[in-house]
């Protein structure tokens, strides 16, 4: 594990891939000469056909008698009908989080606008009742966004987070991909998991 993912909190041990000590590379036979048995082909072909047929038969049985806790033996998802649960680490469409009263958390500090590598964000700041700052216009050009998540990382108020929304991101017309503030507002409740996740991850990294 490298330094970035080695987080001293017990709760969070993000592990990517197989740990190195569990990787046991298979022994590969290097000499390319076939043995007599293999150069007869027939028996090796029958062995190969046995493997494919076994997969075929087991999968066919799996369609009828469903294995425990699974819908079928093949783990492909029938996409529009079935959907996978998106993990909290997933970076979907960036959305603006609101307070309970429906007002956006954003204070129009402009950090996200500044950090955005694709120049996708445009903010117009204004004052409300002579005290709070708020963005009177927050335009997010999703035809430019690269889903890097920098805006979320840099935001001091947890006002913009990467939600789990992955549908309806593409349009036939680019002008429809420019979202206004009203289109991006989401309640705090709907992005709860992600906020928890970024608190856990970003608070531990020292820059």
């Amino acid at each position, binding site marked *: 594990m490298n330094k970035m993912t080695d987080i001293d909190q017990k709760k969070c041990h993000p592990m990517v891939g197989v740990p190195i000590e569990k990787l046991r590379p298979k022994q590969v036979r290097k000499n390319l000469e076939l043995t007599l048995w293999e150069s007869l082909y027939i028996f090796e*072909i029958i062995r190969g056909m046995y493997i494919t047929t076994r997969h075929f038969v087991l999968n*066919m049985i799996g369609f009828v008698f469903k294995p425990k806790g699974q819908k079928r033996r*093949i783990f492909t998802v029938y996409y529009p009908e079935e959907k996978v649960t998106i993990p909290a680490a997933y970076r979907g469409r960036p959305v603006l989080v609101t307070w309970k009263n429906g007002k956006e958390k954003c204070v129009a500090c402009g950090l996200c606008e500044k950090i955005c590598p694709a120049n996708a964000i445009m903010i117009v700041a204004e004052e409300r009742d002579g005290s709070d700052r708020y963005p009177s216009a927050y335009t997010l050009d999703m035809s430019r966004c690269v889903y890097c998540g920098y805006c979320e990382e840099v935001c001091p108020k947890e006002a913009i987070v990467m939600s789990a929304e992955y549908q309806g991101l593409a349009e036939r017309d680019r002008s429809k991909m420019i979202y206004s503030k009203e289109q991006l507002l989401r309640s705090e409740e709907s992005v709860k998991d992600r906020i928890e996740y970024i608190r856990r991850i970003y608070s531990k990294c020292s820059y």
Partner: protein
Amino acid sequence: MLADMIESIAKILFIFGMNIGFFAPVLGWVERKQSAVMQDRIGANRADIFGFTVIGLFHSIADAIKVLTKEDFIPTGANKFFHTAAPFISLVPAIVTFCVIPFGGRYTLFGHDVNLVISDLDVGLLFIFAFSSLATYGAVLGGWSSNNNWSLIGGLRASAQMLSYEVAMGLTIIGVLMVYGSLKLTEIGVMQENFFRWGIFMQPLGFVLFLTCAIAENKRAPFDVPEAESEIVAGYFTEYSGMKFVMFWMGEFLEIVTISGIVTTLFFGAWHLPFITDQMLLSFFQFAGSNGASILAMLVNIATFFIKVIFFIWMQMTIRWTLPRFRYDQVMKLCWKMILPLSLINIFITGLVFLR
């Protein structure tokens, strides 16, 4: 006279309906679905009519509509005549060869002698070889006339491969001819009534060699070098689209059926059930009267034959989705250095044992 004509027309309609109406579209579906399930995928299942997908079977209909409405493209510089003729040349032999394969025995129906083969040629086996070598021209002409380098390479590979395997295939069959002493497929079929006289027991080596040669002749994986997608786009039919492309494709599928038919006839007892002679079948159905017994026995035999054919189709599909492609020199080496000597040895041994 009239009865003969009706019989012929009925047989022709049956075989062609079976081949073009049933096997060609269904094999397209099987190839997709079987390979998918074999590789832990799901496969085509999106085409639906009123929400019914029938496990992807409607994709064949969708395909048909697609190819019929597609542009028929002829590249500039292509030889128009040969470019158009090539798919026909490769499809027609695949259909025609099935007419000498018997799919049932001889029956007496209402005093009329019915022989379940479209054309009972004395030289049936030679006819099959003659026509299956014609299919080579389809591939070669298609590759040559397309004015495309990939096609040309594909065509050249096809010509060399198919001609080589033609030789080997001819030799592998000679063992069977020596055992049964006939080129007439119906006679070979009749002689396999006894389970232990099936070709597979007489010629086990011949069977393996013949199947290998037949798959190579049909240009399917692991011998699909003429159309190797990863090397030369699609080989000799790179420049084909729409209906002509489908004719190549259908020719390939129908040839699978034909190969299965030949293998069944020569090596797996044709239309006979193991351990059950035609006479036993007739006496078993005696309760239905003599005509009824004939009809029932006929149906049982036809069903037996097609079940065997379907088994071999399935086997060829499995081989196609199991094995990787041979390298081109390996294909040639396999033919000239392994199959040819082995088939000669097979002939020699057969001669020692049977001719005495």
